[in-house]
């Protein structure tokens, strides 16, 4: 069943809040949108409405963490990472054990336009030492990441979530391997490896999977991988993918500068020889208002535009 990753996050947070009394949640007047309200309704005494004042929310969360709490602080990705200096010093440098949650990732939010779209948040968060950067592709993966962020991760982390629904992609009963790339689809076992691979993240992965299906009907085999973790980034698996394939594409609803495209390029750059890399995503331009599906076409990250791009390469 299709679900937005923000919804899956809100449900997971409310679930984990029961087991972990140290979890507290802060929001900056967007709890209905970030879905932190699901936690707020269940645990009103551990929810702090901070008003439209994100920097203060970030610093407050750091202080809560120093006293043993595990704060989740929520807003739109662009607003929260926009208070960069406070994250840089009060959280990252201070090694505050907080979970920064940025929803409304990318042009996929549609109508509201550029000012509400998280488009550089991964880039900003990746640049901070020790900051974990996570982005689920569907509801199940969101659950897994939330478990990991509560039960195992130590230090600051950023979680990037979608406004729009995403189809279920996570294979049933597959154990979660934190921070590792995961193959979603590809040639059947025993058949020769695909010469083309796509690595997607967040909403980009579903588009990549559909693009591969379109091309499979034309007899073109493609391996599709998902990156739920942009930092620490799984360079080892990326290099293996780059060895098997001649062409690698990355798909993300985010600027390609500093996002997944950069993660893969940085890994490839350590090798003298590697596959050709095409980084699909927002190409150093601003977002805009529109129908999400039309915007995905316009920005070249819809299944059809990915498939067309690959066909042009062949």
């Amino acid at each position, binding site marked *: 069943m299709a679900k937005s990753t923000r919804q899956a996050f809100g449900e997971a947070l409310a679930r984990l809040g029961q087991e972990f009394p140290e979890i*507290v949640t802060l929001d900056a007047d967007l709890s209905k949108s970030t879905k932190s309200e699901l936690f707020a309704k269940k645990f009103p*005494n*551990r929810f*702090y409405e*901070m*008003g439209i*004042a994100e*920097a*203060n*929310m*970030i*610093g*407050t*969360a*750091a*202080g*809560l*963490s*120093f*006293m*043993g*709490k595990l*704060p989740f602080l929520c807003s739109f990705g662009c607003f929260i990472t926009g208070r960069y*200096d*406070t994250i*840089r*010093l*009060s959280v990252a*440098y*201070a*090694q505050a054990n907080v979970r920064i949650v940025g929803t409304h990732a990318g042009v996929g939010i549609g109508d509201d336009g550029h000012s509400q779209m998280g488009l550089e948040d991964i880039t900003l968060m990746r640049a901070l030492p020790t900051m974990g950067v996570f982005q689920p592709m569907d509801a199940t993966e969101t659950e897994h990441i939330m478990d990991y962020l509560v039960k195992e991760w130590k230090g600051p982390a950023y979680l990037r979530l979608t406004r729009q629904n995403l189809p279920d992609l996570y294979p049933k009963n597959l154990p979660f391997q934190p921070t590792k790339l995961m193959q979603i689809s590809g040639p059947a076992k025993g058949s020769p490896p695909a010469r083309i691979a796509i690595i997607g993240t967040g909403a980009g992965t579903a588009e990549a999977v559909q693009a591969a299906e379109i091309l499979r009907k034309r007899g073109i085999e493609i391996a599709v991988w998902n990156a739920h973790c942009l930092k620490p980034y799984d360079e080892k698996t990326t290099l293996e993918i780059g060895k098997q394939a001649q062409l690698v594409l990355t798909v993300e609803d985010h600027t390609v500068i500093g996002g997944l495209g950069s993660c893969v390029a940085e890994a490839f750059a350590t090798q003298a020889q590697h596959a050709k890399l095409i980084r699909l995503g927002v190409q150093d331009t601003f977002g805009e208002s529109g129908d999400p599906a039309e915007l995905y076409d316009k920005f070249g990250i819809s299944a059809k535009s990915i498939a067309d791009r690959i066909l042009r390469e062949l």
Partner: protein
Amino acid sequence: MQPKELLGIADELRIWILDMLAQAKSGHPGGSLSAIDIVTALFFHEMRGIGTNQLEPVRDHFVLSKGHAVPALYAALCKKGFIPFEELKTLRQTGSRLQGHPDRVRLPIVEASTGSLGQGLSVAQGMAMALKQDGKSSRVFCLVGDGEIQEGQIWEAAMSAPKFQLSNLCVILDNNKGQIDGPVSQVMPIEPIGDKWKAFGWHVLEIDGHDMTQILKAFEEARNLEKNGSKTPVFILAHTVKGKGVSFMEGNIGWHGVAPKPEEAEKAKQEIMKNALAREGKNNG
């Protein structure tokens, strides 16, 4: 501890601050010396359980939001025994725990990493919220600079702390009236300070930040307010003098971020010692 004793400690710490800065050849004497009487009152009189486990029931907390005054904090922590005296010489040196601005990772006795102004009050607020939530009686003190309150984030916190009824939070403003580019009143006026914090819902006290009796009384009043059921955070507007205790530094904005040369530090130390001895004599006679 008696005010006279505390002033003696403050003077000793003033000397350490000057030595540290002269040794480092950089740093901020003006704001460290304006803050040291307040810091001394906190660490040697008002705050309970400093340095014990952060999760202990009664252990008060301190956030130095004006992070550039960190030599004042290092001096107090050294006097308390948390930093070896020899280590003070390493201020700002490569590999030192004594970073140019507070770093809670390298030196965990420091409670917040600050230095980008305007952030520490939010952190202190979060600490106070956690303590309230856990039903602990610990209090949180946060020292901010007057130039620092030009930062917008300060006013976000000024707005939110009364909402959360943080009577366990006490902010002290080191109102030394100077900042790097000139007098605060010219760079960006912030008056009327007390009225602004009152309007935001704080209980405001106004004192001479170098009069130890007034400092201790203000802390006592803040403590009693909470004890008597007040639900508002307390803001102490402490009027101070930049470079206090060293006549050639006092009120001189040029000493905001310039370290004294060895001979200047020596001259300053002589003056502090002379004044300390005079005060001793006066009090004894």
